């Protein structure tokens, strides 16, 4: 864990309302793993007070990338940084995806900004594994396929790809993977992750998901981010420290 001030080097709107920010941060780039996250202080002032958690979206040499939309005040300030403004990063945080399991085919299932952690994961997987991506959103504007491979899309309103949610799309495609040892990597709203868990448990598929939760510290000292464990009912796991990536078998989402 480090705290570093790193300069913004590029801000791009990769699609309507979705920003990709390139940051020069050799310290973070050198040690972060896909699925881990950063807790970012967007302003030196007391507003906003708390850091904001963001997945590591990608790493290229000494540069890291964040992907986000303007959700509230924090992301608004972040999106309006100028080139060479520095941002205050605490990280790398949490446990990332486990890519040393025994599998042949990686399946990415992402809803909305749940796509954020997958460009980096894809980068690390693509040389060794077959990667398929299912990407969904409410409308076609919410579907983010940036730097993903073998993409199939789904929208709730049918404006792009499959008419329905991305978990249904994934389930529909399961038969095509039936001879492969697959591992699913999911990220998106908790409701989607719950549905994904159900499908994966039913079909006995290895699945890790990156969960979301309000956070204060991001590194285990505030107890602000509990998630119910399937193993122990007498205590919670912490999303920031024990997660944000969990095997679906281990948590009640």
């Amino acid at each position, binding site marked *: 864990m480090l705290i570093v001030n790193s300069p913004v080097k590029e801000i791009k709107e990769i699609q309507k309302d979705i920003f990709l920010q390139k940051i020069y941060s050799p310290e973070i780039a050198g040690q972060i793993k896909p699925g881990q996250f950063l807790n970012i202080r967007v302003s030196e002032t007391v507003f906003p007070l708390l850091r904001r958690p963001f997945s590591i979206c990608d790493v290229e040499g000494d540069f890291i990338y964040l992907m986000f939309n303007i959700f509230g005040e924090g992301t608004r300030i972040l999106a309006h940084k100028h080139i060479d403004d520095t941002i205050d990063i605490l990280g790398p945080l949490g446990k990332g995806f486990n890519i040393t399991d025994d599998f042949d085919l990686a399946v990415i299932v992402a809803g909305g900004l749940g796509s954020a952690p997958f460009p980096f994961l894809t980068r690390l997987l693509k040389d060794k594994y077959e990667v398929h991506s299912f990407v969904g959103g409410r409308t076609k504007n919410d579907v983010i396929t940036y730097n993903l491979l073998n993409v199939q899309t789904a929208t709730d309103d049918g404006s792009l790809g499959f008419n329905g949610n991305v978990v249904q799309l994934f389930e529909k495609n399961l038969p095509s993977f039936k001879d492969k040892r697959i591992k699913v990597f999911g990220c998106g709203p908790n409701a989607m992750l719950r549905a994904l868990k159900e499908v994966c448990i039913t079909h006995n598929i290895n699945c890790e998901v990156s969960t979301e939760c*309000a956070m204060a510290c991001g590194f285990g000292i505030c*107890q*602000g*981010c509990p998630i119910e464990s399937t193993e122990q009912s*007498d*205590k919670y796991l912490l999303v920031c420290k024990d997660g944000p990536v969990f095997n679906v078998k281990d948590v009640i989402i």
Partner: protein
Amino acid sequence: MSKVDLSVNISSLKLRNPIMLASGTVGYGNEIAEFVDLNKIGAIVTKSLSLKPRKGNPPQRITETPAGMLNAIGLANVGVEVFLKEKIPFLKKYDVPLICNIAASSVEEYVECTRILNDEDTIKAFEINVSCPNVKEGGLQFGNNLSAVGRVTEKVRAVTDKPLIIKLSPNVSYIHEFAKVVKDSGGDAVSAINTLVGTAFNIFTRKPKVQNVFAGLSGPAIKPIALAKVLEIHQKVDIPIIGVGGIMNWKDIVEFMIVGASAVQIGTLNFIDPTAPIKIIEDLEKYCLQMNIKSISELTGSYII
């Protein structure tokens, strides 16, 4: 060697500097140790411990507010036994006064926790949290009940010779009355303040943002209130005060000391910049040099009104 004496005393407890890390904002020290050299800190206060482990409240436990945050962790903690077995060994490695904060649901539980922890030498003092929202006595919250606070202080005093600090609730009309009861019942010092009761709602779902509905407000938003509480106590009761509430930098610490604090605790700031406590120590020293202050304790209650 430094030319400024930063050490302060809270009753018989001597601290190398006035900066303590507040209960519930540094867990049991492990994670924060990655950012802070604990050997440089005045003291560390544990998350509130109860007799049995507590799971705490379901999510969502926290939310942000203007210059503040609300939390209702629900006193999630490992319990005194596990604390002694699994958490103390790590803290033993450091030369930092360890203060155990205790939260309980009855006077008996407070006493029992203290008794169990008292033999552990590493523990240098106790801080009794009488102001947690879930703890009631006779229907009233403990911390808002003068006689309950008096009784807890007296009974815990009876089982320990270590410095006994009572952490006061700010959700009362006159906090100095509570400080007075603490003093009269044998307490050595008070911490002021714990969080203020607040809430926040989602305007689209109409549900509380924090699952517990009512939650505790901390952060810079509450600093003016905390300062007023410390000043009120200082003006009316002769007892050492540990100032807590909204400290974000060295200036805030000086301000707390001026209004009457002998030492201070840093809470929410640990979440935002866990390295701040160390930086602040240096800044405090510079201020003292600039102001020609030989011993930082001269600041305590040095207001000019």
